[in-house]
């Protein structure tokens, strides 16, 4: 086992244990804080996949912004007072069955796929490669996302502020 494998297994464990805590914690604040190691573990996997820019964005946006917003809302609504409330619905056995079958199916499929070599080398300078992609072939997606951001800002303000 080399350093890469060691790092991979450590990060995978971090992601999965963190993810387990996110879905399992009764206390929602704990669940939200468990998102932090999970998302940082995913960022670590991106490092191993040579996606430096996505790694930094994952930390900045997912960990530093989305998690903060989720924590805000938990503190604004029920917080830990939800401890006295039942946190799960009646679908637990069914959900376990569905998720179990789905995961087994995924694993079977991906173990049977013959993985060939990649079609080319990774570009050397990652942020530059991403920038060229955004401004050349995917320029439409780039512009449309700004409209999506505008739309969700308008929607969220209208919904969150409506009184009465």
């Amino acid at each position: 086992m080399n350093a890469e494998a060691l790092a991979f297994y450590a990060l995978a464990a971090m992601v999965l244990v963190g993810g387990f805590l996110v879905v399992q914690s009764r206390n929602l604040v704990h669940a939200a804080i468990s998102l932090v190691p999970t998302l940082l573990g995913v960022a670590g996997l991106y490092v191993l996949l040579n996606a430096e820019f996505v790694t930094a964005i994952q930390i900045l946006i997912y960990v530093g912004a989305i998690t903060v917003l989720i924590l805000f809302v938990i503190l604004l609504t029920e917080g830990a007072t939800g401890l006295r409330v039942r946190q799960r619905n009646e679908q637990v056995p069914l959900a376990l069955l569905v998720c179990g079958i789905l995961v087994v199916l995924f694993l079977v499929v991906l173990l049977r796929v013959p993985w060939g070599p990649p079609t080319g080398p990774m570009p050397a300078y990652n942020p530059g490669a991403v920038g060229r992609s955004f401004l050349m072939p995917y320029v439409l997606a780039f512009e449309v996302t700004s409209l999506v951001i505008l739309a969700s800002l308008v929607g969220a303000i209208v919904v969150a502020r409506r009184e009465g």
Partner: protein
Amino acid sequence: MGLGGLLDALWQVEFLRMVVLAAVVFTFLAVGGPLFLVLAERKISAWIQARVGPKHVGPHGILQTVADTVKLLQKESIVPHRADVVLFTAAPVLVAVAALLDWIVIPFAPGVIVRDLNVGILYFAAVSSLTVIGILTGGWASNNKYSLLGGLRSAAQMVSYELPLGFSLLVVATLTGTLSTVRIVEAQPYPAHFYPSVIVAAVVFLIAATAEANRIPFDLPEAEAELVAGYFSEYTPMRFALFQLGEYGALLASSALFTTLFLGGWKGPFALPGVGPVVDGMVWFLLKTYAVVFFLMWVRWTYPRSRIDQLLNVSWKILLPVSMANLLVAGVLVVLG
């Protein structure tokens, strides 16, 4: 196979280097951060307010913070009733670690940098944003209304100022065409570049960095008359000291980044005689960084505290639109050459 067989020899050397460097930078952060800055702050505030300041421990009181640290080590550690002990401890550790991680991309002198990351300044913004989670967690885990309210206010303020700060970094990235801190320093004309958009970005950065470090006129989260001491009200000796380490560490890191982005980093007006480029660079770099810190302290002890609505207005209605426009101006400057 034992662990020694798992990692080849080169990797072990590299790993040792990482651990030693981390320990060295942490020590620098603790000594150059709270240990020195708390003393400096007390001396400077005393000077501004025509007082004497600490003077009994050591000559001119320079050992005051050392004595304080020894005192803190012996103080009882109190965890509030029904607080969440694990998160209560993890929060200040996270804040301190985030401040430490900032330093990885700060170049002290030519070649003296922990790692010159490709995504340098973006990385800096990313790890600094982790502080917010530590503060929210600490405020919640204390099981105290004031702490939680202080934590929420602090978080609202920090996220509001993260945006103009991020845009200032983007202006520099646009003008230099790189995210690496080392290449940003190299690309800067010295003594300073006189692009108007750089000056605007520098001013915005300075205001936002003061707010990010929760300092007067932006220290609402710990407005003691309203909120006791803010998110760290319930924190006693060492956990409190870790928050202090995080706060002063972040202050020092912002000043260092300001030096790197706008003041030419390690470049000095003249080469010091008889020392190599490394020592020369480090001397100039530290001089400039501490000058920025001094400036921020001067502001802190000169201005009164503002109200939270004023503070958020400054960020959202002045700094953010200005920096968005400024970014476009920078883009035009780059395209026109």
